[in-house]
């Protein structure tokens, strides 16, 4: 296990710079998710930690020691994505024991290590089988067991699970989380799926354009996003963005609606200026009046998800989404008032990078 530090880490591919001098410090045993759209630099960062890519500038340190010049296999890093090719002619037991035998460990220690990891991964019953007899889920667990048995310094996962169906996604998440709780490795998980990142990680590193936009606990990136990019990338359903204008000490205008501001937001408006972006999560909006911050609009569509509804309302030129209790509805074209929870109204400068239509995937 190890503490992983990046110092002014840079990755260049020819003239193109993919990672622009980032710094982070991942504690021993911590679970960090690197989250961002494709092309944000998250995979380059992970590959530099693994030793699969050279470091163009700056340094990566394991427990304070630079590893820039260490080859991948000398860094003692386990990676999920290299693990699925099991050796077909030998048993599950021998597959798991393989890295220990090649390291020259004695038979008794190997046996202890294999049985311990197999028990934690619920593979005890399968040890005498050959890979051909395993389901794909079992084969995956054997692959992971083989990676974990040699007690790696850090475990890197690049496991796209967002394409799985809802049930499998939950199962896979629980499985990854349980590996972390059982083994206590430093874990780094690379994903473009915000739900996975929030659900799994102790801290989430949100990246975009080769820079770390925010590195913080899940509830922190959700409730206090560092900028509009983070606000837009984190949260399900996605946050609503609305342009605001004519901001002054008392209030601002959103799509023709004049709204009063709290003391705290007035201070923010003084920094941002008269125009910018207002952001509000669908969970912090409700149908009807009663808030100092109200928006008038026309109903578009109601989705009944049974345990809650998601309602779309057109406010001026902007379509916003609300999460409501079951039973609430709007009809298309109907005039509605939407109340905003003023404590959860976020304001960002205009031009702060927002990708309304991020076309990356």
């Amino acid at each position, binding site marked *: 296990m190890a503490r992983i530090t990046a110092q002014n880490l840079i990755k260049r591919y020819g003239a193109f710079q993919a990672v622009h001098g980032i710094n982070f410090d991942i504690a021993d045993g911590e679970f960090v998710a690197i989250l961002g759209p494709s092309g944000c630099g998250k995979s380059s960062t992970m590959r530099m930690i693994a030793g699969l890519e050279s470091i163009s500038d700056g340094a990566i340190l394991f427990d304070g020691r630079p590893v820039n010049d260490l080859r991948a296999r000398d860094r003692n890093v386990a990676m999920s994505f290299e693990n699925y090719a099991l050796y077909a002619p030998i048993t599950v037991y021998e597959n798991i024991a393989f890295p220990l035998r090649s390291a020259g460990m004695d038979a008794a220690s190997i046996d202890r290590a294999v049985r311990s990891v197999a028990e934690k991964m619920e593979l005890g019953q399968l040890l005498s089988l050959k890979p051909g007899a395993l389901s794909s889920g079992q084969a995956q667990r054997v692959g992971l067991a083989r990676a974990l048995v040699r007690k790696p310094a850090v475990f890197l996962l690049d496991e796209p699970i967002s394409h799985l*169906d809802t049930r499998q996604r939950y199962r896979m998440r629980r499985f990854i989380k349980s590996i972390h709780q059982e083994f206590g490795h430093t874990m780094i998980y690379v994903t473009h799926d915000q739900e996975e990142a929030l659900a799994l990680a102790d801290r989430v590193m949100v990246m975009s354009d080769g820079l770390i936009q925010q590195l913080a606990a899940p509830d922190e990136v959700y409730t206090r996003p560092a900028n509009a990019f983070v606000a837009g990338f984190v949260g399900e359903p996605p946050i609503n963005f609305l342009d605001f204008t004519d901001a002054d000490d008392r209030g601002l205008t959103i799509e023709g609606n004049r709204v009063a501001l709290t003391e705290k937001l007035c201070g923010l408006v003084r920094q941002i200026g008269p125009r910018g972006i207002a952001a509000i999560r669908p969970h912090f909006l409700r149908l009807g009046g009663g808030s100092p911050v109200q928006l008038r609009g026309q109903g578009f569509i109601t989705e009944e998800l049974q345990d809650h509804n998601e309602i779309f309302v057109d406010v001026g030129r902007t379509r916003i989404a609300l999460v409501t209790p079951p039973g609430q509805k709007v009809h298309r074209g109907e005039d509605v008032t939407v109340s905003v929870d003023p404590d959860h109204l976020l304001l960002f400068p205009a031009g702060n990078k927002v990708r309304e239509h*991020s076309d990356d995937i």
Partner: protein
Amino acid sequence: MYALIDVHKRYGLRTVALRKLNLEIRHREFFVLYGPAGAGKSTILNLIAGLTKPTSGDISRDGVSIAHLPPERRGAAMAFENYALYSHLSVAENLAFPLRAAGLDRSEIESRVKRIASVLGIPHVLDRRPGFLSGGQRQRVALGRAIIRPADIYLLDEPIGHLDAKLRHRMRAELKALAVEMNATVVFTTTSSKEALALGDRVGILNSGRLEQVGTPAELYNSPANTFVASFVGDPPMSFLSVTARRSSDGVKLYNGDGQAIASAPFDVLGRTALKAGLRSNAIQLVDAQTSGALKGSVQVVEHLGHSNIAVIAAGGDSIQVSLPADRRLKPGEPVGMIIDPRQIHLFADERALVGEHV
């Protein structure tokens, strides 16, 4: 109305894709086929479109067999997850292609292309060729090309599966609104519970080539026919507890693997074996471990979802998911109590739902 009647579909000698499947797609409904990968969703679309033939059984439209008709005479428009666009044509020309083929006049074509491009959020790329588009944009153009022309039925195979979360959420609403506006009959496949519930007038739950249940989202959510449907509909998925029913001084109760009472039986199930109690994550109230009458367990995992948390609680050999407010802090290993509302318990015997009068 399109119907599959006793359709059996095998690929090669071994692989059975569909088993004696009966399905009716009603006129002007938005029908969602929901199931895991490999369940047979795409096979059903291909059979309706005429891209593949049933091994046995019939396919009909308004009561007349169409099984022998070639694809172009089935009235179906199809969008694939794996899109194929004309690389030498612009996006606008790709979208206009089916309309030109149908002989529409120039101004009509232009206005339809504009309308579809705006629904799909791609008006700014109309002049580009497919090679200059992102994967998400290409997928939307392919979808646009399928839905731009009039058809008796639109077959959409995970058409928004490749899009990022924000776009997917937005397109979901747009697609539904457009279908309503066009009075279209749509079959839409997905692996997402949220998409199935949000879009479907009716949803068919497909599992290994069989329809487990067909119903409205409310029917599937409130009255799942079996544990497969129950675990598949709803996000987060339902949790199951293995229970036995026994008489206590206080009426019939359900006991878990530890012998702890989880709740009163919602109806008489004495004598039933292989019982499972299904619970949605919002049907459980978390209380102090010492609370009398509470089911005791310990926290396994806590997941943050931003607006709420999900805790997985181990109790009596079962893992139970509980939804929590985002500010409720729990640590792995912490003992907790759970109060379960008997009216919100779904009971299953041998994986099939038991129906009884709730007391």
